[in-house]
């Protein structure tokens, strides 16, 4: 049972909240954890190894089994559709995916264009609405696209909505709420079941306490 559990953590915004959650769940993480630039951090006392990845890549590491478990946003899971178990809603990093654009504008009838970091989610969403749109994939600063005439609409993640407001964009539709999830590799889920069940139980306790 002494096997090491490898956990893929998303760098950036979600990371800090995830670390708080893990500490609350009783995992003793060293102080240097918070500002280290290392990509791999071993915590032998807890039999844990952390790998620090781009949020968009967490589910990829877990799917391939190089990480047993990971913390990934629901936005990433929807976009990437990786073959992983989505075991627990950690209820951290609340935000949502939304369609936005300049106020009082309509989509171009002939070739409605949508800029986004989430091409799969965006395409699926508009198809469900009965619209065929042209997707333009961008990697960041999506808000720029409607401002300079690259697209009529954007599909992007919204947490406070401040960036959008400051750039004069308005939200048209809310697509789906997003929180971070605990994801697990299907093989690890079976082979390291004892450790993973314990992790889930401890995290679940903390998460449901937060709800009260």
């Amino acid at each position, binding site marked *: 049972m002494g096997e090491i559990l490898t956990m893929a953590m998303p760098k950036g915004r979600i990371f800090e909240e995830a670390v708080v959650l893990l500490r609350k769940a009783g995992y003793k993480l060293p102080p240097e954890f918070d500002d280290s630039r290392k990509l791999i951090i071993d915590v032998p006392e807890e039999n844990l190894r952390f790998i620090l990845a781009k949020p968009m890549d967490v589910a990829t590491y877990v799917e391939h089994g*190089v990480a047993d478990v990971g913390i990934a946003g629901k936005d990433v899971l929807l976009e990437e559709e990786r073959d992983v178990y989505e*075991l*627990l*809603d950690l209820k951290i990093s609340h935000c949502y995916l939304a369609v936005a654009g300049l106020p009082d504008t309509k989509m171009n009838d002939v070739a409605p264009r949508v800029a986004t970091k989430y091409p799969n989610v965006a395409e699926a969403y508009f198809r469900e609405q009965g619209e065929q749109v042209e997707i333009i994939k961008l990697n960041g600063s999506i808000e720029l696209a409607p401002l300079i005439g690259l697209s009529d609409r954007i599909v992007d993640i919204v947490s406070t909505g401040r960036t959008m407001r400051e750039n004069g964009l308005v939200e048209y539709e809310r697509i789906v709420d997003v929180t971070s999830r605990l994801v697990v590799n299907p*093989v690890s889920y*079976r082979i390291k*079941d004892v450790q993973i069940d314990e992790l889930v139980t401890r995290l679940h306790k903390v998460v449901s306490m937060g709800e009260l």
Partner: protein
Amino acid sequence: MSRLFMFEKPLGMRDTLPELYEKKYRVRAHLAETFKLWGYQFIETPTLEYYETVGAASAIHDAQLFKLLDKEGHTLVLRPEMTTPIARVAASKLLQEDLPVRLAYSANVFRAQQREGGRPAEFEQIGIECVNENTVSCDGEVIALLISSLKKAGLEKFQVSIGHVGFAQELFVQILGTNGRATALRKFLYEKNYVGYREHVQALNLSSIDKQRLLQLLQLRGGEEVLSSAADIIENGQGKKAINELKELWEVIKDYGYVDHVKFDFSIASHMSYYSGILYEVYAGNVGFPIGNGGRYSLIEKFGKNASAAGFAVRLDMLLEALGGGQLENDTHCIFFSQERRGEAFIAARKMREQGQKVVLQDINGVNSLDAFTKKFAETSFLIGGRSNE
């Protein structure tokens, strides 16, 4: 489309170089030998099948099929797995006498790439099918043979997780009333989305006991004890039948002495929609994907015969990864010869080959860097110069 470089292969296609070929060959031989000792007979089927028949009956997603047209305009597929072709052969040829038939295969199957690398589009599956035999003894035999052959191949740490299609199915119908209402839950299970499953259950208009039963399903994994927990949440009928089958299966595997490699998992849902009863996946700890899977299926009915079968397939590439590296020992001898002593060298080589020794005969004038070439062999000897110096 960009111009192809001469070294490029179609996406997902791989070469097998000598070292890997030898490893594959040995592992395949271990499995095949075990299958034969258990009385399974190897067969081959064509690489191409009709899309309308085998392609449609196969559970592999349409987008993953390689398709092409024949001269008559029929759509053909490169076989995406072996179970469906074998069901076709069995239904049309082998089941005339209504007796059990035990078959084995090792063959390359083809699945079109959908995403990035790391997944081959052509890979070898080796497996067996026990056709027209529907006892639990047969399910047990197939699982025991799977375990036995993996052990023979040298795999030590692996686990077979066994579930049953009928259990979740029946639980959903008992609680939700109709099959249609269960679709959403089945989809969540299949997508491995437990968060979505739980949210959906909580939102249903059900008693808290029934909700608990549905949530309990996700916890049902472990050893023999799981069967009684499972029995607690299901009413009589098909679900109990599933549990009884698994109980009996446990006893069968126990008699084979293999229960250490087996666990139950009621949440296993397969992408192979043709499974109709017991089903399982095999995991090795160091590989991120299942190395094999199997179960009981009624696929043969699609080809017009009323028979069920049990079988499994192991992915040779995954198994090799699970077995890990280990340098193969080089046991080839090289005789360098010169023109003058060619005849002598040939006789020496023939003698060694008769003893089973691998020998390369190399004209010394054909090699530029003798040192580098010598390193490729376990031993070398030289028959060069005017006369024998032995």
